[in-house]
């Protein structure tokens, strides 16, 4: 039997509940909080600030440094080993590349903007939540940027296209067609995708359709992010 009804009763195109907030970390130059379902991400931005060692400086532009980290207690029961690992390094790198197209750091040669993303709770879609939080934090920090970035995972569970997979769906094993999990990041003003990864298999037609669903969901997320930022400043 195909996957007709989602495990948590959501509609196909329905995201989990989203909560966003700006300015949650007072010591940082900018910060953001993004919660989608049971996945919770905090992001703190420092800078633009001086960058050392000197050999990593870029005289033509400022650079962006992201750091993705899952907290030891953030998993589902078992302890996540703290610190850097191959997965965290890769996600840090793709986060950087997802955010960089909107940033304008030309005015800050030799400097760095540091983004620290911490996940206190994870239930799939953590890199997407991280990007959303980081985007809020960067805007809050007053970094020149052309647009906000929203991110969401789309995919197919046993042949059915869904938006915002949770862990249960990601690990769904009953079907014959398997699961495809596709995290995307989207820039609304240019309608471009700045992150596209995939686990599993999907047909070309379904991929195109899934991406369209993802874009729609991202537009929704952008409005939540904008609201969070405005709430902080419209006292």
């Amino acid at each position, binding site marked *: 039997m195909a996957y007709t009804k989602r495990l948590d009763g959501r509609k196909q195109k329905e995201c989990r509940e989203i909560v966003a907030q700006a300015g949650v970390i007072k010591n940082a*130059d900018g910060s953001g909080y993004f919660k989608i379902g049971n996945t919770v991400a905090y992001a703190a931005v420092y800078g633009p600030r001086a960058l050392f060692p000197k050999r990593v400086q870029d005289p033509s532009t400022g650079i962006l440094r992201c750091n993705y980290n899952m907290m030891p207690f953030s998993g589902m029961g078992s302890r996540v080993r703290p610190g850097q690992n191959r997965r965290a390094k890769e996600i840090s790198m793709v986060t950087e590349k997802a955010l960089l197209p909107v940033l304008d750091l030309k005015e800050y040669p030799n400097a760095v903007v540091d983004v620290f993303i911490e996940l206190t709770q994870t239930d799939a879609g953590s890199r997407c939540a991280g990007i959303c939080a980081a985007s809020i934090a960067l805007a809050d920090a007053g970094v020149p940027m052309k647009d906000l970035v929203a991110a969401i995972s789309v995919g197919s569970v046993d042949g059915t296209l869904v938006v915002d997979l949770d862990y249960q769906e990601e690990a769904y094993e009953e079907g014959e067609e398997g699961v495809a999990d596709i995290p995307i990041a989207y820039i609304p003003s240019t309608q471009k995708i700045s992150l596209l990864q995939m686990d599993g298999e999907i047909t070309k037609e379904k991929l195109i359709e899934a991406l369209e669903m993802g874009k729609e969901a991202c537009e929704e997320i952008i409005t939540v992010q904008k609201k969070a930022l405005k709430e902080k*400043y419209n*006292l």
Partner: protein
Amino acid sequence: MGKLLVEERKVVVPGEHIAEGMDYLPAQWTYRKGDNILAGRLGLLAVNGRALKIIPLSGTYTPKKDDVIIGKVIDVAMSGWRVETNSAYSAMLSVRDATSEFISRNADLTKFFDLGDYLVAKIVKVTSQKLIDVSTKGPGLRKLYGGRVINVNCNKVPRIIGKQGSMVSLIKNSTGCKIIVGQNGIIWLSGSPDQEVIAIETIKKIEKEAHVSGLTEKITAYLEKKCKNKPAVMPEEDSEENSEEKPAAKPAANKKGEQ
């Protein structure tokens, strides 16, 4: 016909559509995309005729020519000092810009400015690579002795100073503190300890409520209430301003203001 999509003085976020049509022009921190004008940074929208610009609300200090800043000496070089500016870049204070008095070639530069000293300096030059030259030659530019140093959001500095310095002189007069506000968001104050605390509290209040209109009245009332119990030791402090020229006993250690 162009249309403004956001009211003036409202908060805009990056990527937000501000206006439609070619009647409006993008200015600072806004950009044109097709027919629309979008925000390139978080801040308040300011409409100036046809030009749309954004007044930033957050962000670190960007050095600008002619800004008067408060810096800290972090290094002593062959022919000058390196000064921290509370931005991503440090500034250079060369001997020739430091003082009009004669400094011999092999003089010990720490006699003039030592590591950790705070000074009021003016930015004389900023290059495209953000190399900064500062000067301490000029009225009001000098080394700071004693007092305390606090940090504020540099985007709120104009509000703290007020029109023609109205806000800062209000605080000066009610607390009797000497206050110097640097454009880079570093503020130096010196007075009696309890008055210093009141001054800091007031500055923090202004920083927090910078968007409120009629702030001056509010702060006047606040200061009156605060200073009622302990009337400020007023004018004589002001006349002392000039006597500072005489070498102070010893450059007192600068305390970082409490956060």
